[in-house]
């Protein structure tokens, strides 16, 4: 199946809002792109529209949360993460309010709309805030589980999803999900591929392709970028070679965090596949991925190169 992660999250919210009247969804002229039109129509009394005002969005969400609501602030990841960073730092993370920040159309989903619309610094920006947790689910099944878990735990979190429908990574009835534990998609001892978000599918495919060539790659879905699953990273390090794959800048993302952990505890060779430290080329998100090697073919090439050395 192929469903956008934001749609999967909305489905959970729709289901829960029926009985949980504390759930409040907030949008900033973003209900269409956030797949929240149905929610707004079905639960108008649990929906707040703030207009094009992302800083306001986050502070209002924090205020609602401080008075007992489970606030879900939905806005394009680019604006939500960095424009509202101060509000996230002070009103959400520092004040520990029960706000789930849902960054939609994340990474380079907006393609040719350019850097104003890309969120490739969100992990770096928000990850550096004490108390902020970051999740990048890989498919609809995981996105659903994650949303359910977040609705229960009452702590601040940022969830980033892409704009487009993504193919299932997991099987419908066999989804291994444990909160804050990475999911090992494939075991292997030659090298490890750690990916997050919608790059997990490419990592999974690369793992399959390598297997056909007799290379046993361990593939890890690090949907919980922060708190990162250290044990899983150590498991990857034991193979001696790690490739990280993410829809984020080279600095301060999944790759940087994996390097910090391995350098301190279990040094091994790590290659970070990321977007460049420049505004990306014009194109659709697919064209951008292919241009910068964020696809299964390139992961395979990099893996083979690492093994040759």
């Amino acid at each position: 199946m192929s469903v956008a992660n934001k749609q999967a999250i909305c489905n959970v919210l729709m289901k829960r809002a029926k009985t949980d009247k504390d759930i409040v969804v907030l949008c900033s002229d973003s209900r269409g792109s956030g797949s929240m039109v149905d929610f707004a129509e079905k639960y108008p009394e649990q929906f707040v529209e703030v207009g094009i005002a992302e800083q306001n969005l986050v502070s209002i969400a924090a205020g609602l949360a401080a008075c007992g609501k489970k606030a879900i602030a939905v806005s394009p990841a680019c604006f939500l993460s960095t424009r509202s960073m101060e509000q996230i730092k002070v009103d959400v993370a520092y004040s520990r309010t029960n706000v789930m920040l849902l960054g939609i159309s994340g990474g380079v989903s907006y393609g040719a709309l350019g850097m104003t619309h890309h969120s490739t610094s969100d992990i770096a920006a928000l990850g550096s805030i004490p108390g902020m947790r970051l999740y990048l689910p890989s498919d609809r099944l995981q996105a659903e589980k994650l949303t359910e878990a977040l609705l229960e735990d009452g702590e601040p979190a940022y969830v980033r999803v892409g704009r487009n429908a993504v193919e299932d990574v997991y099987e419908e009835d066999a989804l291994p999900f444990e909160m804050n534990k990475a999911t090992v998609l494939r075991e292997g001892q030659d090298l490890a591929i750690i990916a997050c978000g919608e790059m997990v599918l490419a990592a999974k495919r690369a793992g399959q392709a390598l297997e056909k060539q007799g290379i046993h790659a361990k593939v890890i879905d690090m949907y919980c970028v922060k708190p990162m699953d250290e044990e899983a990273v150590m498991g990857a390090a034991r193979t001696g070679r790690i490739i990280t794959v993410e829809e984020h800048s080279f600095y301060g993302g999944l790759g940087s965090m994996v390097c910090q952990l391995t350098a301190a505890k279990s040094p091994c060779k790590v290659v970070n596949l990321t977007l460049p430290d420049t505004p990306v080329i014009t194109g659709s998100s697919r064209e951008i991925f292919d241009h910068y090697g964020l696809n299964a073919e390139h992961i395979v090439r990099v893996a083979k190169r690492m093994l040759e050395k």
Partner: protein
Amino acid sequence: MNTVKDLERKACEIRMDTIKLVYTAGCGHIGGDMSETEALVALYYKYMNCNPDRADDPDRDRFILSKGHSVETLYCILADKGYFDREELMSTYCRYESRFIGHPNNKIPGVEMNSGSLGHGLPVAVGMALAGKMDRKDYRVYTVMGDGELAEGSVWEGAMAAGHYKLDNLCAIVDRNRLQISGTTEEVMSQRNLEERFMSFGWNVLSVQGNHMASIDGALAVAGESVGRPTVIIANTVKGWGVSFMEDNASWHHKVFNGEQYEQAMAELQDRRAKLL
């Protein structure tokens, strides 16, 4: 190119170019392109001192498209004025490795500032206007904002600073088309008392019919006379103006034409243009 009729004809041609661009590329924000056309045409073909041969003249007037999503109109105007090749724009806009991305980018000759994230244009324009005052230069600074955009607090921080520094070399235009992505501005986040709000920040406020060239033309002339106060022109426009099926219809914020719609839109504008010859 100075009579109202000349400008009206130019606006009609720019609309046709814009529609062609969006149709060819299969993307764009056509509704807001159509509503802002008169303002941009009046600025670029009559009021602004700007010239592709001297694109970095320190004395040029500055323009910032704060509602950067409506970039197609701006690109078509800049191409028409000779800042770059129209064919390159038409054939590469938003395509793989093109220099023309879907929001203003100052790699492109004629574009002063990168925009696309709403609520930046006015404060940046304040900086440019302040620099003009510091350097005792005569250039003027213009910015066009959306009405949905006015929900951003940064707009009002900029408005306060412009009033405080008495920036009479600054003119902001609000494309008051009463629509944004999710519906009408009044449903999403009311913008009532807009005139009073700007006035209270010390602005010279003009409210005109924004798709009526003579009115926009007149307002820009008045703005140039302001002493000691920045001017805002509330341009009461119609989103999608000029094409019957797009007018005042929120779904045309960024919808793209099918072949039939494209033909009809072009036919309607050709009719209008014929009447202006």
